[in-house]
């Protein structure tokens, strides 16, 4: 595959790994967080940990859209999916996310009309083809996917659709990062920044991280060489005593982001006063709801939504995993009670979840050298 294989060149990867090792001062240990679940997935898929020197540790962050959906919202979605005559559409990742009593896959087996779509536009098409049915799109994701939901709603409005609604669970990246950075026990040296989110929002909005919290961030692409290069850029910043926002993913990310996408979001969404995040608690101004001009498409206004807040299962430590406080394998139910096929926590469901990535790709007992 042209333009992809070039970023998977093993020879260049080894060169970068060597430069990373050379850029870290001997005796110094670096803890770097990759914010985005897409990075976590790539890191495990290409086993990049194997290439890094022992004193550079990667910590997984909160940027996995499925992982941060609280159980109450899943229950709300499942309750709506059981509505007579309603067609419930969502991305495939959502189907196995556990609610308090069942998953959407279980709801489907019980007769709910749950359909996987690959784009919100597919949901709109289903609405067009089924004029006698309500069609609901369960929207999730950070600023990466929010523009496509916004454009779909804009089109639904232009077409005068009356049977299409959206249950909006879109979240924004900056508030959870602030929450994370404000934590008194923060022990991170730098961040691998979310490339796809930055495509939309630009690199400028991450400037608070070096300015207010004194940590460097490098916005990164998702191929193995992208990630290694970003780690190298972080190590060099730390080595040279610099602390700034750098952009490794220059082939798609600009300082100001995508103005058309931002305009579509501004037209359709407004910030919710507060939103519950799985494992992170309620964070003010951290999520998007539909604004008044789009109220007729808002599933939460059209339907009776239980809106109950459900505490995470006691055994589940997704919150600590999402904050990078513990590694997936340190969770007390990891791999035994909580597995991809019978997940307790969201981090075990999504391919971008740290637990799923570690379980599916990283579960190797490596021969340990004698200490």
């Amino acid at each position, binding site marked *: 595959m042209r333009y992809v294989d070039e970023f998977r060149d093993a020879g260049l990867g080894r060169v970068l*790994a060597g430069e990373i090792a050379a850029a870290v001062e001997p005796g110094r240990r670096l803890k770097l967080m990759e914010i985005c679940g897409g990075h976590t997935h790539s890191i495990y*898929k290409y086993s990049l940990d194997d290439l890094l020197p022992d004193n550079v540790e990667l910590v997984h962050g909160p940027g996995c859209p499925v992982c941060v959906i609280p159980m109450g919202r899943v229950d709300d979605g499942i309750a709506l999916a059981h509505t007579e005559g309603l067609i419930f559409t969502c991305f495939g990742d959502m189907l196995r996310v556990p609610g308090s009593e069942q998953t959407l896959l279980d709801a489907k087996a*019980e007769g709910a009309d749950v359909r996987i779509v690959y784009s919100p536009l597919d949901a709109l098409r289903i609405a067009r083809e089924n004029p006698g049915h309500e069609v609901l799109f369960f929207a999730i994701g950070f600023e990466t996917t929010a523009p496509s939901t916004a454009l779909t709603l804009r089109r639904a409005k232009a077409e005068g659709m009356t049977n299409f609604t959206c249950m909006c669970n879109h979240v924004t990246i900056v508030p959870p990062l602030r929450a994370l950075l404000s934590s008194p026990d923060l022990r991170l040296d730098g961040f691998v920044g979310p490339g796809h989110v930055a495509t939309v929002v630009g690199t400028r909005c991450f400037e608070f991280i070096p300015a207010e919290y004194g940590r460097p961030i490098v916005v990164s692409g998702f191929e193995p060489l992208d990630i290694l290069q970003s780690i190298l850029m972080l190590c060099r910043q730390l080595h040279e005593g610099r602390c700034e926002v750098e952009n490794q993913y220059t082939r798609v990310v600009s300082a100001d982001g995508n103005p058309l996408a931002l305009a579509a979001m501004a037209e359709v969404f407004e910030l919710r006063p507060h939103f519950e995040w799985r494992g992170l608690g309620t964070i003010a101004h951290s999520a998007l709801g539909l604004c008044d001009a789009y109220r007729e498409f808002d599933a939460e206004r059209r339907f009776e939504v239980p809106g109950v807040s459900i505490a995470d299962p006691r055994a589940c430590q997704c919150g600590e995993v999402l904050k990078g406080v513990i590694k997936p394998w340190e969770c007390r139910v990891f791999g035994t009670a909580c597995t991809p096929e019978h997940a307790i926590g969201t981090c075990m469901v999504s391919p971008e979840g740290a637990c799923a990535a570690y379980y599916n790709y990283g579960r190797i007992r490596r021969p340990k050298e004698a200490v």
Partner: protein
Amino acid sequence: MSAPESFAGDREQRVLAIIETARAKPARFRDARITLAHGAGGKATQTLIEGLLVPAFARPGGALAALGDAGAVAAGGVALAISSDSFVVKPLRFPGGSIGELAVNGTVNDLAVSGARALALTVSLILEEGLESEVLAAEVAAIAAAAHTAGVEIVGGDTKVVERGAADGMYITTSGIGVIDPRATLSSEAIAAGDVVLLSGPIAEHGTAIMLARNLFELDAEIESDTCSLWPAVDALLGAAGPALHCMRDATRGGVASVLNELARAAGVSVTVDAAAVPVAPNVAAAAELLGIDPMYIANEGRFVAFVAPAAAERALGALQAVAGCEQAAIIGTVAQEPPGMVLVDTGFGGRRVMDQLVGDPLPRIC
């Protein structure tokens, strides 16, 4: 800092050991309802088979416990193989094939990878009220043509019609019987450390062709299903490797990854795959990349993996590559003792990772 870190490393190894023990336990079927995941060929399918069907049907020392693609039965001193396969693919026709052709090749191939050339098939049709006769006639012709190509006779069958909505056009079940070739000494237990893993050709074409045929993605690519009879390839391998050919399996639902996991588990060995050695056509790789699906998990209908003793590997590969359609056959991996039941991948990037069984279903009803 170094002392606590090495402690954490040991602790991680212990956690992983506990997980391996848990995974090695026999599967228990405790789902409240059947979901599409039970049909996907991954973990849920395995739980259904090993947790519900086998305990109910298997007799001590019987053929079912081997969980091969076909069951072996001895009759009057002749070793027979019996297999059955159902087809519910949507759409009925797709680039490179159709449900009728799949239905014949599916059972012929289950017999072939068990070392048996198919002798006879029965064909059962479940038809939906309202199905156009023209569509049915086309599939009947496809069944006849595929049977002719595979050299197998259709000796019986059954027809049922269900109300509109109770089926989706048509479903087909074929059952087949064949005589196990005297050159074949195949079983998952014969797989041994040191064996090499052969793959008969480029992967993921069938599943990708079906995905694109459904027009869900507005992707256009000329990708055709790989459906074909595997007997000529199996015949060539048996001739070249004989008893050095330890086991074969066709990589249908769940793809090459699922088949390797099944066999690693059954044989109690590990398989390490060299990701760079696995042949994937560039357009298939690109489509899979766009859809975010690993080609190793995408279904094939005309590809199989074979485990061969190392001394016979090159000879077997040469024989396989000489068969039409298998020119790109390759050695993709090796077998080791440890860690038992696991499939690992050398990423081509200097690292090694797990390649687990499929959980959930990227796409139902591909065969």
